[in-house]
């Protein structure tokens, strides 16, 4: 690799030591051919001096023949558009993989096409990546395809996004153009849940802020693209908590050795660990972790090892070894987001093969719940999927599968569907965590059902005594939209009318009932579960409950509704724009989220799904607090909750 030794002082030993210890970043570039994606990659390779002389000579020759950059100029895109048809048509059809390394990192680039008809290729490229570079043409800003690419990246679980606003040279390196695009992107991407969003202005053609800092954009103080890629932290993304070991191959070279070979999908394992084989639920202990270099005292994802067990228990390819106290789902049924990848459309009820880790079983898609319009990110009908379409489906497998939600575990939450006749790979699936209690639960981790004792006083008796119904009014809205303020005013108004009401404020719960919880996926769900359980207890004792807390996604609110019960759950949408919320922000959380100091703030760097239009809404920006409480009281009276 030309250019890797920057000066002559480093010895080979030092070089080897540095290169042996550097890590690996796999990233994806998305954007259409017009956004200058291939040019950007060509520029990255060229400016980091990773292009060989003979390649460069061929490039100059090809630029004359097929180049689109004008006479005498090198067309860097030709460096990376590999297939003949692509070079002739000037578009990138397939996923191409590029490699380069610097003393800090080795990089694998998945270079994927941008057109809508290549959605599957982009999904393919994204499946193995930790980061995506989303290119935006500074002249056009955030357009439909920007949204599509960002959606697919989010769907495939990419947490790190770099938004590169390209072709800044064509807008006179104007900062306000860049800022406008940045704002627009932040607005639309709020619901996609990227943990780490980074923006930078570049010109791939001219080389501004790609490898070298731009001389034309003093107003941008951040690092150029390559420096960012070299330093961005991705190590924390790996799941080292849940030990999952899909048995890949039983290694039995002689009568004295029987080992289970496989790649650790997640978690850590040590000799002596108590394990369970799924789906058989047989138990044993890890005897040894065998490798060609000898036995290890611990192994972790994604190491490829061979495990031996203390007991002669039966396990074979497709089984999963897990710790006895940390189990995945084991079920015939699952729900998943599916990207359809074949010309022949999805046929509900048809038998497909499901390959999930090392498990291979037959199954059917029993139902398409909805399709997602990849351009607007909205749900649309539930027609069977065609090529490049994405939707949520229910799958019924012929045998139980061991799996986790994709969000928790990429390796045990992903699968492909294979056609049994043509052998084509039809679709890629990402498993969704099932909303608890909405279907028959055959999860291995479910506790035995506990029998409840019936109260001798029922709800009807209580409401007769109190003179009103008990309901939970659930306020949904962005952080700082005014939910708590409205809940407290309503509580007072109800009290004045002689109605027993109690508010449940998210922030307060965080300091008592939920003080042990953080703000990441599982903890957030647990926070909602506890809050909803509290609402239900209050409802059961006859009170109207006013819940004001962040349950930003539809799934969050479905959990709450499920616990409280649909009949008792009344959602009210507190509609404030992001701008209004920011101006209400006395605690500085928006500023801190925008600066990247806190993650997962709904609307900024965490997902937020506004409720459907049919949900009753109030708008604090236009109506006074009194008008709002009056409107809600009228609603409650209309619904015969109060009289």
């Amino acid at each position, binding site marked *: 690799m*030309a250019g890797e030794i920057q000066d002559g002082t480093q010895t080979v030993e030092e070089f080897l030591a540095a290169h042996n210890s550097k890590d690996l970043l796999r990233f994806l570039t998305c954007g259409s051919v017009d956004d200058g994606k291939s040019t950007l990659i060509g520029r990255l390779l060229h400016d980091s001096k990773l292009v060989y002389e003979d390649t460069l000579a061929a490039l100059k020759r090809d630029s004359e023949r097929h180049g689109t950059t004008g006479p005498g100029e090198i067309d860097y895109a030709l460096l990376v558009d590999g*297939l003949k048809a692509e070079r002739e048509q000037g578009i990138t059809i397939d996923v191409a993989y590029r490699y380069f390394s610097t003393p800090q990192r*080795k990089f694998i680039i998945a270079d994927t096409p941008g057109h809508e008809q290549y959605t599957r290729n982009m999904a393919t490229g994204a499946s*193995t990546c930790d980061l995506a570079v989303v290119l935006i043409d500074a002249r056009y800003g955030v357009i439909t395809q920007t949204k599509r690419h960002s959606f697919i990246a989010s769907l495939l679980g990419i947490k790190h996004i770099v938004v590169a606003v390209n072709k800044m040279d064509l807008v006179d390196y104007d900062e306000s153009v860049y800022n406008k695009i940045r704002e627009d992107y932040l607005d639309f991407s709020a619901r996609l849940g990227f943990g780490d969003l980074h923006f930078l202005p570049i010109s791939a053609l001219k080389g501004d802020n790609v490898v070298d800092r731009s001389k034309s954009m003093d107003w941008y103080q951040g690092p150029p693209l390559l420096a960012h890629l070299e330093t961005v932290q991705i190590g924390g993304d790996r799941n080292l908590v849940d030990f999952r070991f899909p048995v890949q191959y039983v290694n039995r070279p002689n009568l004295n050795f029987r080992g289970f070979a496989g790649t650790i999908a997640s978690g850590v394992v040590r000799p002596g660990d108590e394990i369970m084989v799924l789906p058989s639920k047989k138990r044993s202990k890890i005897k040894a972790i065998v490798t060609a270099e000898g036995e290890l005292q611990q192994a972790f994802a994604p190491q490829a090892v061979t495990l031996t067990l203390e007991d002669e228990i039966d396990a074979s390819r497709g089984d999963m070894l897990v710790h006895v106290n940390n189990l995945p789902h084991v079920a015939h049924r699952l729900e998943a987001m599916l990207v359809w990848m074949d010309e022949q459309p999805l046929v509900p009820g048809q038998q497909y093969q499901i390959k999930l880790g090392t498990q291979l079983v037959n199954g059917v898609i029993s139902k398409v719940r909805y399709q997602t319009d990849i351009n607007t990110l909205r749900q649309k009908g539930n027609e069977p999927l065609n090529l490049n379409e994405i939707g949520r489906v229910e799958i019924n497998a012929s045998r139980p599968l061991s799996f986790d939600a994709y969000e928790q575990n990429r390796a045990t939450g992903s699968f492909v569907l294979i056609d049994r006749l043509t*052998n084509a*790979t039809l679709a890629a699936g990402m498993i969704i965590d099932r909303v608890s209690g909405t279907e028959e639960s055959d999860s291995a981790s479910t506790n035995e059902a506990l029998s409840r004792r019936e109260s001798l006083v029922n709800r009807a008796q209580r409401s007769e005594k109190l003179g009103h119904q008990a309901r939970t009014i659930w306020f949904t809205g962005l952080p700082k939209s005014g939910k708590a303020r409205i809940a407290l005013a309503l509580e007072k108004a109800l009290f004045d009318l002689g109605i027993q009401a109690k508010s449940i404020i998210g922030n307060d719960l965080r300091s008592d009932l939920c003080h042990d919880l953080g703000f990441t996926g599982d903890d957030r769900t647990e926070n909602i579960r506890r809050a909803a359980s509290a609402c239900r207890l209050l409802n059961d004792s006859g009170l109207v409950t006013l819940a004001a807390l962040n349950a930003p996604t539809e799934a969050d609110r479905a959990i709450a509704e499920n616990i409280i019960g649909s009949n008792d759950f009344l959602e009210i949408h507190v509609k404030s724009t992001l701008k209004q919320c920011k101006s209400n922000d006395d605690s500085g959380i928006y500023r801190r989220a925008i600066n990247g100091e806190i993650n997962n703030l709904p609307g900024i760097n965490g997902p937020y799904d506004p409720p459907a239009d049919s949900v009753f809404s109030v708008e604090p920006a236009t109506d006074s607090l009194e008008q709002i409480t009056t409107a809600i009281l009228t609603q409650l009276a209309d619904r015969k909750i109060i009289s």
Partner: protein
Amino acid sequence: MDSYRLSHLQQLEAESIHIIREVVAEFANPVMLYSIGKDSSVMLKLAEKAFAPGPLPFSLLHVDTTWKFKEMVKFRDYICAERGHKLIVHSNQEGIDQGINPFDHGSQNYTTIMKTHGLLQAMEKHGFDAAFGGARRDEEKSRAKERIYSFRDTNGGWDPKNQRPELWNLYNGRHNKGESIRVFPISNWTELDVWLYIHLEKIPIVPLYFAAKRPVVRRGNDLIMVDDDRMRLEPDEVPEQMEVRFRTLGCYPLTGAVESTASSVEEIVEETMLATTSERASRVIDHDGDASMEDKKKEGYF
């Protein structure tokens, strides 16, 4: 978390071992193409690791064009004997009978008949349904787009526009009778990675990779070694002794040497890092045209 860190080589190793095990678990009759070069040597090492403490659960196949360097053949037989690997050597007998050689028939025809056809004959003769190859995606532009599991039709052909999507580490190896899959476990390795790994793991390689005085003739930009007396010399050509080594190995009349004094793996790593030309520059067959590799693969070449 630092104790749970893997270097890029450890990650590449784990990925390759996963792929090799996956093939052995899912295919009825896999074989490993062993071309004796550095990439094959790394792939072989990874396979040994994948099945330790057991032996390799498949044979090695060498498609011998009969024009390989003598040292390669010697090294092949030594390694297989020492490690106890089962080796199948196949040559295209029809090609030999017709006297096909790289001088009279051109590099393109010669390669098609002796390498591509030879390989397809061996696959058919032994009924192999999967064949491992040591190709890397950084070698050449069309290889950059090839899947890890490369589906081949009954003629061994590759259809670049109709490849199966390949997501995560879920490989689809399903095929009908007569069809096969070529598998490239070291797809994501670069030339530098291969050398770093050879150094780290002390993997033996053919001595031709190390610089030594060797008899060569200069043809255009290529230095061709005179490995035996079948080499056709032009009337005015006289082989001279030069200090050279090879960055890739193939058939000697088609493989250019580079002038070098690198006589250890460390020195090769140093030279590789400072290299200003890509390794396939020394492969005469790649100069056949801009898309020549893609065309060869469509016909069944590795």
